[in-house]
């Protein structure tokens, strides 16, 4: 029902909390389709490679690193430095994969599975 997902794609649900959605077209929820496999850096010298769905030997299964790169390229509507830092995200943003802190799952190296849910939040201070 999410429409347009190919056999070689993963469907990933993304949610933002604590004001972060302001950076993503003010939408707290997004569904993105990501190729299951991505060319490994060694196989491509292009600094911003367009991933393909081919399963060549030097491709790797899509990881959180690929998702964040994909998000910056496709759904980030405001300035990147408010969200990202290097390959990852800015310190102070909590990243959750299927309701677990992503450090429990391997952070950037986590291999995404179809229907994974990824949440980005910042803390609250009121009381």
């Amino acid at each position, binding site marked *: 029902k999410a429409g347009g997902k190919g056999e070689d794609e993963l469907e990933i649900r993304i949610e933002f*909390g*604590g*004001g*972060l959605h*302001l*950076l993503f077209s003010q939408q707290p929820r997004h569904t993105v389709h990501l190729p299951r496999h991505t060319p490994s850096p060694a196989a491509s010298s292009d600094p911003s490679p367009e991933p393909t769905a081919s399963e060549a030997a030097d491709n790797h299964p899509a990881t959180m690193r690929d998702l964040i790169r994909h998000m910056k390229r496709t759904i980030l509507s*405001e300035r990147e430095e*408010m969200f990202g830092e290097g390959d990852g995200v*800015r*310190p*102070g*943003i*909590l990243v*959750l994969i299927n*309701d*677990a*802190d992503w*450090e*429990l799952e391997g952070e950037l190296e986590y291999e995404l599975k179809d229907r994974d849910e990824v*949440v980005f*939040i*910042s*803390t*609250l*201070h*009121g*009381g």
Partner: protein
Amino acid sequence: MSAQNDNAEAGPSSPHRPLKLEEYERYGRQMILPGWGLPGQLKLKAARIAVVGAGGLGCPVLQYLAGAGVGTIDIFDHDTVSASNLHRQVLHTTERVGMNKAESAAAAMTALNPFITPHPHSEPITPNNALALLRAAEIIVDCTDRPLTRYLLSDASVRLGVPLVSGAAISSAGQWAVYDDKGKRRACYRCIWPQIIPGSSGRCEDVGVWGVVTGMAGTGMAGEVIKLILGNEDQQPLLHLLHLGQNPLIRTIRLKPPSPKCIACGPNATITDDLDAVGYEAFCGGVEVDEETGM
């Protein structure tokens, strides 16, 4: 013939009658729960807890801890009861507007349960006095609304080696978790939130808050405190994220273990008992807010 008088006559917890008959009657409905019983009720009675903040989060925390029979509760709040807060600070009354909030909360708690002892404190907790004021507590409960105090209470709990139950609420969102325990199985507040994101420090005075959001978060925090005292806390460290009007209403998150890089609880921690040296003002105030996104 008040309950306190009875208490004085009978003497506390003699070995053959560790609770008074009136306490058995009062606590019976919870003592029959699995994992509770007489030993659990005695743990609650013997416990001493510090609750910092008697506002929107503190009111339900104090109410349910008093109801459950937590023996000694230090309440810290230097603020006074204000009519503008009564929509969410439901332990206070209109008659007590102007009274110190810790005093007002203590009065309400005694009226609910005369078998517990609340200790109201009206002096502010500062980097200078935090360790001295909190040393007696076996759990610290953060119901405050300022980032500075949140990091101070976290650092104090690390230095004192006691768990921190920390919650927050603003607008329609709330969150709470248990941080930092004796066995160092849990991350401290700084491990999870090493840096303040500018703009995330909005206060209820400016942004507003739903009373039921502070209510649900505070009640959840009281549950964490009771589970910690009974010794049946969650086996995995969990963070609860509440968002009124969203599906799911509450998201339960598995937290990571303590961070080896943490400046409060890591192996190379730089924060010591000299909390005055931490520089909370600079840490919390030195963030520039982006005008466009408010972050």
